[in-house]
């Protein structure tokens, strides 16, 4: 099966970036890059989670978020956030074919998670073809 795959260099770039994100916030325990059609491409999890399944779900929820924005006549969906009693899951587009998901405990402040995720997505967009 031909699937979207990073070069070794890109993968190393991602892992460095993921490490920076973990260092910035203790609350973050999962970072996942997947394709817009739901395949996992790169990840770093400090807890066990099903990357393949999460990738499919993240692509679905982000596509729904974008569609809901259009139906409600709002512009450009920036993030989809799932807020739970014990954590946040934040998903955003990196560029047209990739999405970034960041999973954190509620110890993170949501504003901080936004900025960490946005910065990472911008760096990734610049680095990845």
């Amino acid at each position, binding site marked *: 099966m031909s699937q979207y795959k990073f070069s070794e260099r890109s993968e190393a770039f991602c892992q460095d970036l993921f490490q920076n994100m973990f260092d910035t916030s203790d609350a973050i325990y999962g970072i996942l890059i997947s394709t817009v059609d739901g395949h996992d491409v790169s990840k770093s999890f400090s807890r066990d989670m099903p990357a393949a399944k999460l990738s499919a779900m993240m692509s679905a929820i982000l*596509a729904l978020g974008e569609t809901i924005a259009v139906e409600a006549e709002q512009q450009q969906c920036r993030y989809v956030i799932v807020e739970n009693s014990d954590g946040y899951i934040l998903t955003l587009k990196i560029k047209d074919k990739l999405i970034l998901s960041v999973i954190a405990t509620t110890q993170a402040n949501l504003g901080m998670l936004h900025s960490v995720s946005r910065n990472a997505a911008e760096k990734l967009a610049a680095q990845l073809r």
Partner: protein
Amino acid sequence: MSEIKLIITGPPGAGKTTAIAAISETAPVKTDTHTTDDLAAVKEQTTVAMDFGELTLDDGQKVFLYGTPGQRRFEFMWKILVEGGLGLIILVDCSRPDPLADLHMYLDNFADFIRQTSVVVGLTRTDHPDAPAVAEFYSSIESSGRVLPILEVDIREREDVALLINALVSTLEFSR
């Protein structure tokens, strides 16, 4: 009963999104994204969450149509989308390598839903040289102890989609 929910499923490329776009009276809701895997050779876009469309039958009955993603990794959406549904349309693309196996895959995966509801099967791209004959579909379904309506359709045509929906709605009325 003034509103009914119907679900359309089937393999990637069978035409679920196309069918809903063809028949919906309102602008259909789509969640298609770029394909990044083998499917890209067949199609540039694939559904990752759902399709949605609305129509009104001749007798004023309102129908809400929900299309599922076809790809297996979106199975979780199948369970979400059938909730509250009254009937299922399975589209089978006869140009794929094993259309009979495709049909049984969806019959098996939607088995719980099917037990409580009605199903019709729509065969698409039946002009493909390797397409099984309709009779093969009937006997293959019968051998698993079922009888289902099977229709050959061009899913791009509004009337053909209407045919499937009417067939499904009439079995619903019959079973009530």
